[in-house]
């Protein structure tokens, strides 16, 4: 690929170079002169409607020879356009001049800020957006201290369920149309629009429609103000209290990058994080909201032996004893495609220490879409395959369990996959929530959910990504890799490892596709692997 053509652009008096095709608003940001904006969104079309990004612009003055006239500095003399121009819908051009802070540009911003605020309800004290609101932020920077508006404000609906997961406060809306454009351009479900005219304009779903797309909550993310709020998150927590942990979604094989917002060991929300190799800046509602089970009242957080609470050492010892109580060919492991690579690798190790050859993961195939949601709801099918835990033996295992040939079963992070467990001698399960398997378990070991631990997974496109720990597992529940390590230790007597980094190191040494990598090298945006 040839290098893009570079264009000379003067920004606030300094000449800089930008590749052809750079939007003026982006060029200015790169040059350190951030231009405030409401309607512009880099992933959507530009309607130029908010007028917040007005700046002064000029083009080279042409001499009689139709060549740019040069000034004493040898640079083109700029002919400044007397009217302000928006910077969000035009690309830079050779010799273009831009002033982002001239009196004209400042006056324009002050004017637009005032217009946006005159009919705004100023609900900040009770508004979920407060703290991450562009109207608040830009008011501080570009607004006036007082108001000149003596009239009644326009009244609009304040609590509209525009969809099952999104609540609209129309008075807070700055009519930037980001939400409309998102729905039309990304999930291509043209469901939102404006009704009424002028200052009475209001966002609404089309008649007989709802904002019910599986991508609806992205409108909440891109809404620059508190007009669209997540019904789930609404009034739950002030955003400035949230601790932010970079992670990714484990609800399907895509692995959309996320930020987990938590406070005092409680997850309050998940929001998408930009990763152009994975999810752009979006994620689906299903994945986003699929964290409440972590805080379910039914969550199991104490080890149990035969249904009775037990201490960890006793429970591990009992589990190890069960796994060794019959010949290895009468033991099987059902693992999960939502386990991390580290956990899968330890699982494989446990199997080999015990000579267990019957092990597999449970596939979870549902309907996917063309955007992000993968039909494969296991986030780490690729990891299970790479590390040799998945096989095509699930049917054989099921049949063995049901016929009584397999007498001891270890189930990791899964339900019993519809298998009748009646003939088992003993069942060891590791998991979070009660299920058919945990109910029958001889030993139950409570483990950690995706937000409660670290580890890596490989998404459907072969990208290695990293989970970071946002909160502690509840009660006595423990990180899965530690449980597996303890089991290995208990069955083999060998000394285990003491850090997950060490698990990764061992795994990477033994796995060519991971050669040279470490947990810290994965970084926030993941690493593309070369898988066969």
């Amino acid at each position, binding site marked *: 690929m040839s290098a893009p053509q570079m264009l000379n652009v003067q920004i606030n008096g300094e000449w800089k170079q930008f590749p052809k095709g750079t939007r003026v608003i982006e060029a200015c940001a790169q040059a350190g002169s951030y231009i405030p904006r409401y309607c512009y969104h880099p992933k959507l079309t530009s309607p130029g*409607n908010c*007028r917040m990004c007005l700046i002064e612009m000029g083009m080279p003055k042409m001499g009689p020879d139709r060549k740019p006239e040069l000034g004493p500095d040898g640079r083109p003399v700029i002919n400044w356009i007397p009217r302000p121009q928006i910077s969000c819908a035009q690309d830079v051009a050779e010799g273009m001049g831009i002033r982002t802070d001239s009196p004209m540009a400042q006056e324009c911003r002050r004017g637009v800020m005032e217009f946006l605020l005159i009919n705004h309800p100023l609900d900040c004290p009770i508004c979920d957006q407060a703290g991450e609101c562009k109207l608040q932020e830009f008011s501080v920077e570009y607004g006036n201290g007082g108001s000149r508006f003596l009239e009644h404000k*326009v009244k609009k609906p304040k609590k509209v369920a525009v969809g099952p997961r999104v609540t609209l406060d129309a008075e807070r809306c700055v009519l930037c149309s980001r939400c409309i454009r998102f729905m039309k351009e990304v999930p291509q479900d043209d469901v939102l629009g404006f009704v009424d005219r002028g200052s009475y304009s209001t966002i609404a779903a089309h008649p007989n429609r709802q904002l019910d797309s599986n991508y609806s909550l992205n409108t909440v993310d891109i809404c620059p103000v508190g007009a669209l709020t997540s019904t789930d998150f609404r009034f739950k927590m002030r955003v400035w209290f949230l601790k932010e942990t970079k992670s990714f979604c484990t609800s399907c094989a895509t692995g959309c990058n996320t930020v987990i917002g938590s406070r005092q060991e409680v997850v309050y929300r998940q929001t998408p994080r930009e990763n152009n190799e994975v999810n752009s800046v979006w994620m689906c509602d299903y994945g986003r909201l699929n964290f409440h089970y972590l805080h379910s009242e039914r969550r199991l957080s104490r080890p149990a032996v035969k249904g009775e609470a037990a201490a960890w050492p006793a429970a591990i010892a009992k589990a190890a004893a069960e796994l060794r109580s019959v010949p290895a060919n009468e033991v099987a492991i059902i693992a999960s495609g939502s386990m991390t690579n580290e956990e899968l690798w330890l699982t494989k190790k446990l199997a080999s220490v015990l000579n267990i050859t019957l092990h597999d993961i449970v596939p979870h195939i549902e309907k996917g879409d063309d955007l992000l949601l993968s039909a494969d709801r296991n986030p780490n099918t690729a990891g299970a395959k790479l590390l040799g835990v998945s096989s095509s033996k699930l049917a054989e295992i099921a049949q063995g369990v049901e016929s009584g040939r397999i007498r001891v079963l270890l189930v990791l992070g899964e339900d019993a996959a519809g298998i009748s467990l009646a003939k088992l001698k003993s069942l060891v399960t590791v998991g979070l929530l009660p299920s058919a398997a945990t109910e029958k378990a001889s030993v139950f070991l409570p483990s950690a959910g995706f937000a409660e631990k670290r580890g890596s997974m490989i998404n459907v496109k072969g990208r290695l990504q990293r989970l970071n720990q946002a909160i502690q597992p509840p009660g006595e529940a423990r990180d899965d890799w530690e449980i597996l390590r303890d089991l290995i230790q208990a069955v083999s007597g060998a000394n285990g490892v003491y850090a997950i980094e060490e698990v990764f190191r061992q795994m990477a040494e033994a796995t060519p596709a991971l050669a040279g990598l470490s947990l810290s090298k994965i970084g926030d945006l993941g690493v593309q692997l070369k898988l066969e």
Partner: protein
Amino acid sequence: MPTPFKKTPHPKERRLVFQNVDREGWSEDIGCYMENGGYEELRKALTMERTAIVNEVKASGLRGRGGAGFPCGVKWGFIKLDEPKPVYLICNADESEPGTFKDRYILHQDPHQLLEGMIISSFALGVHLAYIYIRGEFPTGAKILETAIAEARAKNFLGKNILGSGFDLEIYVHRGAGAYICGEETGLIESLEGKRAYPRIKPPYFPAVLGLYQCPTIVNNVETLCNIKHIVRMGGAEYAKIGKPNNTGTRVLCVSGDVREPGYFELEVGAVTMGELIYDLCGGMKPGRKLKAVIPGGSSAKVLRAGEKYKIKTKQPDGSTGEKEIGIEDIVMDFDSLAAVGSMAGSGGVIVMDDSRDMLWTLNNINEFYAHESCGQCTPCREGSLWMKKITERMLLGGGVERDPAVLKNVADNIAGRTICAFGEACAWPTQSFVAKFKEEFDSRAGKPVPPPMPPEYLPEELIGKEEAHA
């Protein structure tokens, strides 16, 4: 001999586009039109080279009659002869600017003149699909056009292989739903595409480049398109002799307000001064009344005040330019002169006000219109238009505070030049000009040093009612 007109045109008029309007014995059917030489210019045009027609239009100096006064030939010149995409022609028949009522007479009484103009224009521009976007409040006009189109098709002036020339064209009538903004050409295009009439940003959406369905599109006013027929008949150079340089042709002025005989007058551009228009053509002011103000080009044009002196540039006999002071009566009614006095010829709607008029009331009336018609897309116009209206309304009701005139001006200044479409100027100019030119009238209604208490929005009982309705 009976006069051939129901209302005799004034002797100063020169009727070209309105030649059949109000004519005795005239009917809008194709038979009548053809008996009077109709569609002869189409026959002529079909024998011409496409570029030759465009060149005649360029030579004619015809400027758009819709409001902006943009040279028609220049606009047409943006269309490439070998454009690979479809090219569309749209006739803007949305005529909604308050004070303007010329296009409706053409639509009602002389639809074939418009069709002929459009067919010629389409031929010249390589258009095979043209639209007439007619305002929703013209249901009769729409019916008349539909009939006229059917008549023209029956005679093969429309359809396939028009008059054996190999040229195909269909014209469709599209009715608006009653919004002023549909007259703005890019809003119109959005509306025609079936969307809300939200004007587009320019750049990049110049209609001649990315217009209807993102194809090159020419939007012209009804009167502009009718003129094309006459340009083809006379030739561009001959047409350019009508009127004045850079202000060629005739123009229909619509006079309304406090004159004795309001109405429409087709005049050579610049043939009369404001004074002649009011006192000669319109019979002067109503009895006992004096001229106070004129809005010369539709409600969005800046108001002109009687008694005010305007400095204009004049050509001296020796060729040098001098300066002259003139009064409102001496302003020549053409594009350049009205621009020189700080207003515009706009849509040709001349609104005359006498000394009984309250300028605050008048501005509030205009502000109400623009606050109601702002499409609401861009921030300054959406919020500013209603704000200005709320201020003038409060002042009218006796609640004016000292800073109101200054705030009004500043709000208008914060709109003009900062919006997506020219509606921003349309709604800001009245406020800017009224407040500046009738300062004493505004100041005298802005007496309160502190804001008066706001009237309650809801009575307590109503609030309780609302609560219950919500529960």
